[in-house]
């Protein structure tokens, strides 16, 4: 059956309305409809996997034809996002199970969010994507509001930044429409190739501000930590894995397809074999990596660690994309896929822990490995992926980015990227140690593993991470199509690695993985066979001259990396957030003075009017000098 693009777009909206209406009957009816409609795009999408469709006109507004289209980049991301939305909706059913009407609204809003995301990805002109982009912002605002205690602060921070981004993009869109006369992507690209430098630069910066705010790149990232942390857990998954990627998707599409690297090279000075704009973006990406990683290390809240980690990983993607070479862009695109998978996985695990224990504060958790083994294994796979170690998927993309940096002769950026990699291992280890290892708190004695259905998202993503890690050919299939679409030479790969690509030294990832696993097996065998170990109870221990008691926790849980905190303390006082706070404070006082023109005094009101008359009478008397 041939599904039109419009049908794909409308499915989630229709599903959401149906589910909301069904909630009047019974919660389970609503859930069934919800899940079914989340699954339908899986059926509709495969038709379009290999196609590039343009010009599906669906509306004519303001003299312009709004159209939908699909290209390899969109179809790759559509598949990924459909999966994430489906898994997140499973999670949402549990999370909002006993929240009554809030749950109904959340189901409606999540479905509509999926529809809005589809709209952005399926857009073929600059007006359509903007309409759906703003719709996304509204829906995220309402979804975040259903979260934890500080959710209201998060909402206001988010929407202020979203509005700044949206209006910046709107300025660029109106400007482009005014100059180019048409809104379609291909027509705009045609106009931009012959436009004056000032227009190209101004519109690119305005668009970039909008996209990078959504993608939480420095210095626009200040809304991300609090929003990801305070949103409900299913929504956090969607935020980190989908919403952020939409910003990066748009950035990739606009930078390569609409503007084009050649345009930048032509119009702007070259710095070290990159155009100036791309070079600045590489440094911004690197800065995001390093600062995000370092701040993540010292966090005490589980979701905040993941939020700052997302910020840092966005930096990797931006770094890869703005390198502009086939290797770099492939690394960036592959990291988009990989990051969505492993970050989603980590958020699901943390969400499950919160679902069972009721807290996300790391010092209050510990020792859950015996109670929640499936979550532990999933998180273990997740953190190996974040750290970029084979056999999980993070290795492939990070490896490509490192190699691309070497190829481009960028030692400083390479160092920063590697530092980020090491740092990421530090914070994910903190995460798994504080939650699963260490000592169990008394109040968590009765904690069980999350319900079976709720385990599905974690298991699916963990297996997917493993699969994509060992057989990178599967995601690379899509990535190479995208590279060809964006006008770059796709890098050569096969199912198991990159043996033919000149410059890459790791030929066969499964071989590496098997070596890795073999090493672990050997270590395990040695541990169990050599008879020097004896199993004892955790508390039957002797530690620094004292016998342990149950109420004193002997594992590090608070101030885990306090030594690290001391090292970076002098840098902590330069905070992007405080710059914004002082700026906002300044604007607030200025506005406060301005609004006192409405004094409440009748005389002032009347004299304002009289002054107006006097001014114009003077103009008349002076014979129209100001005329």
């Amino acid at each position, binding site marked *: 059956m041939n599904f039109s693009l419009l049908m794909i777009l409308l499915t989630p909206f229709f599903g959401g309305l149906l589910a909301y209406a069904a909630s009047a009957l019974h919660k389970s009816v609503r859930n069934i409809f919800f899940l079914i409609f989340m699954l339908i795009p899986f059926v509709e999408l495969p038709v379009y996997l290999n196609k590039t469709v343009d010009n599906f006109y669906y509306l004519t507004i303001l003299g312009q034809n709004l159209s939908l289209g699909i290209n390899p980049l969109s179809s790759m991301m559509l598949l990924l996002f459909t999966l994430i939305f489906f898994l997140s909706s499973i999670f949402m059913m549990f999370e909002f199970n006993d929240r009554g009407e809030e749950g109904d609204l959340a189901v409606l809003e999540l479905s509509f969010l999926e529809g809005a995301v589809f709209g952005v990805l399926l857009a073929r002109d600059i007006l359509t994507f903007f309409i759906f982009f703003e719709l996304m912002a509204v829906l995220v605002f309402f979804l975040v509001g259903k979260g934890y205690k500080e959710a209201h602060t998060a909402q206001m921070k988010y929407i202020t930044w979203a509005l700044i981004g949206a209006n910046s993009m709107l300025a660029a869109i109106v400007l482009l429409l005014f100059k180019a006369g048409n809104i379609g992507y291909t027509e705009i690209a045609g106009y931009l190739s012959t436009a004056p430098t000032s227009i190209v630069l101004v519109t690119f910066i305005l668009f970039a501000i909008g996209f990078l705010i959504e993608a939480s790149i420095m210095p626009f990232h200040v809304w991300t930590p609090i929003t990801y942390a305070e949103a409900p857990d299913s929504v956090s998954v969607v935020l980190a894995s989908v919403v952020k990627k939409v910003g990066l998707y748009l950035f990739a599409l606009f930078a390569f397809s609409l503007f084009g690297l050649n345009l930048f090279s032509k119009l702007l000075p070259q710095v070290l074999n990159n155009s100036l704009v791309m070079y600045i973006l590489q440094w911004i990406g690197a800065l995001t990596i390093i600062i995000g990683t370092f701040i993540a290390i010292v966090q005490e809240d589980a979701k905040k660690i993941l939020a700052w980690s997302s910020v840092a990983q966005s930096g990797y993607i931006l770094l890869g994309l703005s390198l502009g070479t086939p290797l770099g862009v492939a690394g960036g695109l592959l990291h988009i896929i990989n990051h969505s998978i492993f970050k989603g996985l980590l958020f699901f695990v943390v969400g499950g822990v919160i679902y069972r224990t009721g807290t996300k504060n790391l010092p209050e958790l510990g020792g859950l490995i015996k109670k929640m083994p499936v979550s532990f294994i999933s998180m273990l796979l997740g953190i190996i992926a974040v750290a970029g170690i084979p056999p999980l998927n993070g290795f492939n993309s990070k490896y490509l980015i490192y190699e691309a940096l070497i190829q481009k002769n960028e030692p400083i950026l390479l160092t920063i990227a590697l530092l980020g990699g090491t740092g990421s291992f530090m914070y994910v280890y903190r995460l798994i140690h504080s939650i699963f290892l260490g000592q169990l708190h008394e109040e968590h004695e009765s904690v069980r593993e999350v319900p079976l259905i709720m385990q599905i998202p974690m298991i699916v993503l963990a297996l997917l991470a493993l699969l994509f890690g060992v057989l990178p050919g599967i995601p690379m299939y899509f990535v190479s199509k995208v590279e060809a679409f964006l006008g770059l030479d796709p890098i050569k790969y096969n199912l198991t690695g990159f043996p033919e690509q000149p410059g890459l030294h790791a030929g066969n990832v499964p071989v590496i993985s098997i070596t890795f696993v073999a090493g672990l097996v050997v270590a395990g065998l040695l541990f169990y066979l050599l008879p020097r170990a004896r199993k004892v109870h955790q508390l039957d221990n002797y530690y620094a001259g004292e016998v342990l008691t149950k109420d004193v926790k002997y594992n590090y849980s608070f101030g885990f990396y306090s030594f690290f905190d001391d090292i970076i303390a002098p840098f902590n006082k330069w905070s992007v957030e405080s710059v914004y706070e002082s700026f906002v404070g300044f604007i607030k006082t200025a506005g406060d003075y301005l609004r*006192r*023109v409405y*004094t*409440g005094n009748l*005389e002032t009101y*009347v004299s304002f009017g009289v002054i107006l008359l006097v001014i114009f009478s003077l103009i008349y008397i002076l014979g129209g000098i100001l005329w």
Partner: protein
Amino acid sequence: MIFYVSALLIIGIGIYAIIIKKNLIKIIIGLDLIETGINLLIVSIGYINGKTAPIFSKGVMNASRMVDSVPQALTLTSIVIGASELALAAAFVVLLYRKYGTLDVRKIRSLRW
């Protein structure tokens, strides 16, 4: 000519009263002055030298012997409107006095910025 000047003068006094005076009743009287000045101005604009009042009467049956009648109609309308507006304003002043106990406009300032 003198009528124009005096009308404008009356309007000016009215505006002065609204802006400078603090007593509510004086403000209303200022409004009344503005209205009166404008009415005077209207009638003077309609005056044509040597003609008489626009009323059909013995000896004056021809419209060419009358001053312009349109401004007189305008003035009548305006007087009526002015009277009703000032009545409403006076009603407000009575209510204000009951609530605040003062006729000083500077004290009635609770709604601001």
